[in-house]
């Protein structure tokens, strides 16, 4: 599903990723853990195609296609979902309008029929209910006045609506209380735990992995993967800290 080889990337000419190699096979959930400054968010943004994050070497393929040859919106249409650590507020634009236009833009570029207003509202209500979110909130402007936990739940509702093949979730667990964490974990499992789908879960803490069991855990340090292992690696990191585990 996702294959990254020897990836080097810079932000404002500063090297952040330094030869990162990683493969996420179809049907698997992989977690990337690492200390602050290891390059976790940079990896998410590079994969999402954020302007200002420059790939200087290496390659990435998504479903066999050259990821870096695609524009950000083309990556979404191809089935990639990027969950934001800090979801963005858009005053004046309701969540319903934002998501309906986004989804229909994806569907148009895939040659699929657009959803009508009624069809879309039904879909949005279903997915909101799945995440334990009041669908009325989707009438509000995108993320405006949402608490940290509500923003993250809303990200998961968006993921449910977009129904991607690959989700890259950047610290979706940060700033969540236990209830929200449980809801987000359940959302990831129900939407993405599927033999046809894959997840790259980027996280600082082990606690989300109590709810979503990864097939593999990778440790990112100084812009490279320094260790990989099974789910038990996350517990070891939690016990011993990154310095020890990455040594």
């Amino acid at each position, binding site marked *: 599903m996702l294959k990254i080889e020897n990836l080097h990337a810079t932000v404002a000419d500063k090297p952040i990723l330094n030869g990162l190699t990683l493969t996420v096979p179809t049907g698997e959930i992989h977690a990337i853990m690492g200390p602050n400054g290891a390059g976790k968010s940079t990896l998410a943004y590079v994969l999402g195609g954020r302007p200002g994050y420059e790939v200087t070497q290496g390659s990435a393929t998504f479903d066999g296609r050259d990821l870096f040859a695609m524009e950000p919106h083309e990556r*979404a249409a191809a089935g990639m979902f990027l969950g934001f650590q800090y979801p963005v507020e858009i005053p004046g634009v309701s969540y319903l309008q934002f998501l309906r*236009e986004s989804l229909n833009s*994806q569907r148009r570029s895939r040659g699929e029929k657009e959803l009508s207003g009624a069809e879309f509202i039904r879909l949005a209500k279903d997915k909101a209910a799945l995440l334990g979110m009041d669908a009325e909130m989707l009438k509000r402007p995108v993320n405006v006045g949402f608490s940290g936990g509500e923003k993250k739940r809303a990200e998961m509702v968006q993921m449910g609506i977009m129904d991607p093949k690959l989700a890259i979730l950047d610290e979706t667990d940060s700033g969540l209380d236990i209830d929200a964490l449980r809801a987000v974990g359940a959302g990831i499992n129900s939407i993405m735990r599927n033999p046809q789908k894959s997840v790259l879960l980027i996280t600082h803490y082990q606690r989300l992995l109590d709810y979503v069991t990864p097939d593999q855990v990778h440790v990112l340090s100084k812009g490279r993967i320094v260790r990989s292992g099974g789910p038990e690696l996350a517990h070891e990191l939690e016990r011993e800290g990154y310095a020890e585990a990455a040594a």
Partner: protein
Amino acid sequence: MTALPTRKLEAYRYADIDALRDVWDGLAQPERVEIAAQQRLQQIWLPSGDEVDIRRVEMTLQKGATARIFALNNAPRYGRFELDVTMHEGADFALYGANIGGGNSTLEIVTTLRHIAPGATSHQTVRSVLGDKATGSFLGKIEVAREGQQTDAEQSVKAMLLHRGATANAKPELEIYADDVKCAHGATVGELDRNQLFYAAARGLDPASARALLLEGFVGGLWGDIDGDDLGIADLARATLHKVAA
């Protein structure tokens, strides 16, 4: 005023005088609107569709009268909406206006609000979206006479520039002779937010659709208070935004 104005006049400093020359004869005398005491008026000003679209209105609000004006200014060459409003005691005036244009268009909304008696209120909200080499201006003058105690006047002016060649002018002007008044004004000029654009792209919106959607959010609030049929002003504004954002 019957002679063609020049740019030396403050209210015409950003005007396209050449465009004005061709149509001035029919405009030298402004249209007059009088709203009787305690009466309420709502007007929706749709663009005429002409290359040059000028509207000059002198309005008087008698005691306790209310006026709501919703205006979309999107003329391809020169659009000018000029409003001179005189407010008597307790009158309430509101303007919601948009300048939306690209190319070489010049778009302006020019208002003079005269608070001549106590307790009148006025609210003006103007949003400009300007692409290519367009110029959008808001000149808003507020005069509060000695008798205009307890005036509450407010202006909110925001402009969004889509290209380097576009220009926005915002010029509040206050002339206050009363000592117990509230006059607030705020003006900003900005560009589309990169974080919002990337967020929209990451959800699958192509760049032109993302820009148009964000601009709809920027302008859309203007039409929320329209009572009854909006005569298509929201759709027309949206269509113009999509054209400018393409």
